[in-house]
């Protein structure tokens, strides 16, 4: 029975984690009911799947996603989720044939959910989402900014407008947009000036190592100690979220064993219930109900294309069969003759070559990371690499790149970035003037060819192109 209690606790932990990170509330009971294929568990599971697929697509579960979800009809929701899952590679026929009105099939949904969590590493991505309330640029959350409910219909869509009127509208909107960009520019300058003032004023006092002054956030907290409570609650919520995630690391094995049992149930059910979804021979019979199982955007000629490619491949194999056999013999002989020591030499040579190539490629990926890295803060250092290269090589490469990261001085790459950006800006300016001149010339030729038109050039443009 302690086993059962463990399972229950783990499932509840999973539900807590999902809720902490933005998914809608799911009870542990729902998941358990889904194991036994109870119909009332389907609805919440469809919603959970939707949210998790949108999380893995966009990186977060936004409130707009939930709103969109509530607005969609049931069939649309089902369609959307099925499409997303197939796009990720979950090609289970049983899942794809689930009814579009969200009745039943909760065990399939549970299996799909577990597959998604595992394949997309959703829990790890939750861990990567750092949202500590004492991060400096989260300061804006404390201002009570009321959201303007500006009309949600864009202007100028109601009536019909002539093309001339449309042109005027577009000119107007364009100019308005530019003005707003200028407002943004002014706001950003103000931000920089004020931050500079704060840093100057608190010179000599510091709460974090490595800085010589207080940050804006810290100054705000010092001035408004009554907001400490709010920050404390936020911090508590954050730490409980992290605790849950940590516990998951220990306990997830229980969850996967439980999922095994779910799978066993399903296989058993299939054997007992008799081949409902099994072979293609029964495809004709299933034609009526399992009408559509493919939800990916595939071109209609896909079937023919696949068959043609298959034929091609078989032809190729037949052609080169003899060559392939010879190569295999050669490989065998080589493998038995080359010694352990020679293998090591080869590996180190490959390592060195990779390092060299990386350094010559320019340190751009590292540089970007340096520019955006915050100061001392929590960071999970992932040791997993994405390649399938043997473990020895990948670890060596990862270790060396990390050490270079930490040793590098941030000032040097920033200066290079600045010069590079300046050169880019200059080249863009040159391109712009060249294009302007070109356009002016074309305008002039058009004006000359047509006797009824005159081309009037505003003086500041003429000045620019001289």
């Amino acid at each position, binding site marked *: 029975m302690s086993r059962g209690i463990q399972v229950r606790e783990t499932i509840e932990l999973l539900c807590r984690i999902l809720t902490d990170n933005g998914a809608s509330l799911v009870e542990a009971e729902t998941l358990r009911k889904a194991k036994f294929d109870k119909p009332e568990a389907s609805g919440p599971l469809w919603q959970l799947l939707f949210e998790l697929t949108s999380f893995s697509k966009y990186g977060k579960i936004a409130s707009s996603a939930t709103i969109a979800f509530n607005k969609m009809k049931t069939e649309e929701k089902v369609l959307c989720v099925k499409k997303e899952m197939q796009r990720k590679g979950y090609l289970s026929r049983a899942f794809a044939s689930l009814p579009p009105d969200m009745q039943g099939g909760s065990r399939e949904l549970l299996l799909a959910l577990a597959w998604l969590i595992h394949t997309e590493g959703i829990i790890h991505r939750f861990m990567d989402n750092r949202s500590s309330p004492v991060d400096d640029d989260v300061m804006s959350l404390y201002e009570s900014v009321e959201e303007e409910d500006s*009309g949600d219909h864009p202007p*100028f869509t109601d009536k019909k407008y002539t093309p001339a009127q449309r042109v005027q509208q577009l000119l107007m909107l364009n100019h308005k947009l530019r003005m707003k960009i*200028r407002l943004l520019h002014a706001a950003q300058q103000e931000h920089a*000036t004020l931050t500079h003032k704060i840093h100057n004023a608190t010179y000599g006092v510091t709460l974090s190592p490595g800085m010589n002054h207080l940050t804006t956030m810290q100054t705000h907290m010092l001035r408004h100690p009554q907001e400490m409570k709010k920050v404390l609650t936020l911090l508590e919520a954050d730490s409980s979220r992290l605790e849950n995630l940590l516990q998951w690391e220990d306990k997830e094995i229980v969850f996967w064993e439980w999922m095994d049992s779910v799978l066993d149930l399903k296989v058993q059910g299939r054997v007992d219930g008799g081949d409902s979804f099994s072979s293609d021979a029964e495809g004709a019979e299933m034609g009526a109900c399992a009408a559509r199982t493919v939800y990916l955007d595939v071109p209609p000629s896909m079937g023919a294309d696949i068959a043609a490619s298959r034929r091609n491949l078989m032809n190729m194999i037949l052609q080169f069969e003899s060559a392939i056999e010879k190569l295999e013999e050669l490989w065998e002989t080589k493998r038995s003759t080359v010694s352990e020591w020679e293998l090591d030499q080869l590996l180190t040579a490959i390592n060195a070559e990779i390092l060299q190539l990386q350094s010559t490629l320019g340190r751009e990926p590292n540089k970007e990371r340096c520019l955006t890295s915050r100061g001392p803060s929590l960071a999970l250092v992932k040791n997993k690499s994405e390649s399938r290269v043997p473990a020895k090589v990948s670890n060596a490469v990862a270790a060396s790149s990390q050490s270079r990261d930490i040793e590098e001085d941030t000032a040097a790459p920033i200066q290079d970035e600045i010069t590079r950006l300046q050169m880019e800006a200059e080249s863009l300016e040159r391109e712009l003037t060249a294009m302007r001149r070109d356009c002016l010339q074309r305008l002039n030729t058009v004006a000359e060819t047509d006797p009824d038109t005159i081309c009037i050039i505003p*003086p500041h443009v003429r000045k620019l192109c001289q």
Partner: protein
Amino acid sequence: MSVITLQLGQCGNQVGGQFFTSIMDDLHAPLTAINMSKQANNDYIQESQETFFCEQKNSSVPEARAVMVDMETKAISQTVTEAKRTGRWVYPERQQLHQKRGSGNNWAHGFCLHGPVVREAVLDMVQREAEKCDRLGGFLSLLSLAGGTGSGVGAYVSEMLREEFPQAFMVNQVVWPYRTGEVIVQNYNAVLTLSHLYQTADAIVVMENDELHKICSQLLSIKRIAFRDINRVICHKLTSFLQPAQPVETRTGYGKELGSKLQLLVPHPDHKLLTIRNIPQVSDRAMEFSTFQWTGLLKHLRQMLIASAPMEEGINWQVKVEETPRGSSRHNRSLAASLVLRGKDVQSADPSIFRDPSLYSSWTSADIGLSVSTQPRSFCGYEKCAALISNSRSVVQPLDHILEKAWNMFASRAYVHQYVKHGMSEEDFLDAFVTLEQVVSSYKSL
């Protein structure tokens, strides 16, 4: 948000002095007269003062954020002493530039000769002023179109500012000369200045001397009208637009900057001319005996807009908002408008009559075009007052008039040699005419 004022030329300097004095008068109005709590009043004062003035380190009298430029010494020194005399504000030292010889009412003299000479000094002063600001909201240039310094040097300074501060917002307030003005070449000066300002400024606020004169004589019952009275009317209009007011659509502080007001009023790059209409404007003696209601005020204001009337007397009530059978309209159509309501019971005022779509051009609508701001604090002794800043067709008429006169003079090349000898060419004249003709045609098609 801070606005830096540039006072250019004799007229510009005098208007500028009066401008800051009007602001100070408004801010120092006694608590009993303004219908507001002390705390709210202090907020208002702080906001307004932060915009136009700068705190001094060793004295409590604030300094105006202003740069003064003139080619003669008299106007500037007079304005500075008057400012000091009020005791409420001063001009910062070393922010004035004056020279000895003047521009002789010649635009080319101002633009081609004086402009480059004073460029460095003026830029220096402006940058010093800009560094004092936390947030540069924009520039307000005050100048007149008829003279030589204000118009010529003013146009040059505007271009220079646009080069140095490409992201800043620039509003130019221009004083339109009398139709029967004293300066012979005023039309040339006006045409040249306007065409240059159109390229660089974001918005040009037009104040016609003729209309202001009428307001002084008929509404304010002033017997002998001097420039001082006209300047006071100008500043009344400007301050009713620029003093703090809360936009109705947004509840947060967004929307109060000069830039947000401008992006609502001058959204189209071809339409930059603005006019300000105020209501009510009564003389001091009549003030005690007048009371007003919002409905009446707004109705009058609307008719002033439709009939292109500059003031609330002599409005042509016959002009209605309707289309003629051929599709054109006789009433005045706007591209955008901003309504500022100040005074008691301002929440009860109903601006919906301004949302009539036929008041606006056919390709825009009142949703984008109209913005309403309110301020419960009474303004300048008026219990209730409203100002309408609009970007509308009515501005075309004086422009047309000036263009015609200038063209007639140019056709016979009268006085052109005065301009050519300072470095201009006839092509510059032609460019100016062409630009303004384009402006006129785009306004006519509104």
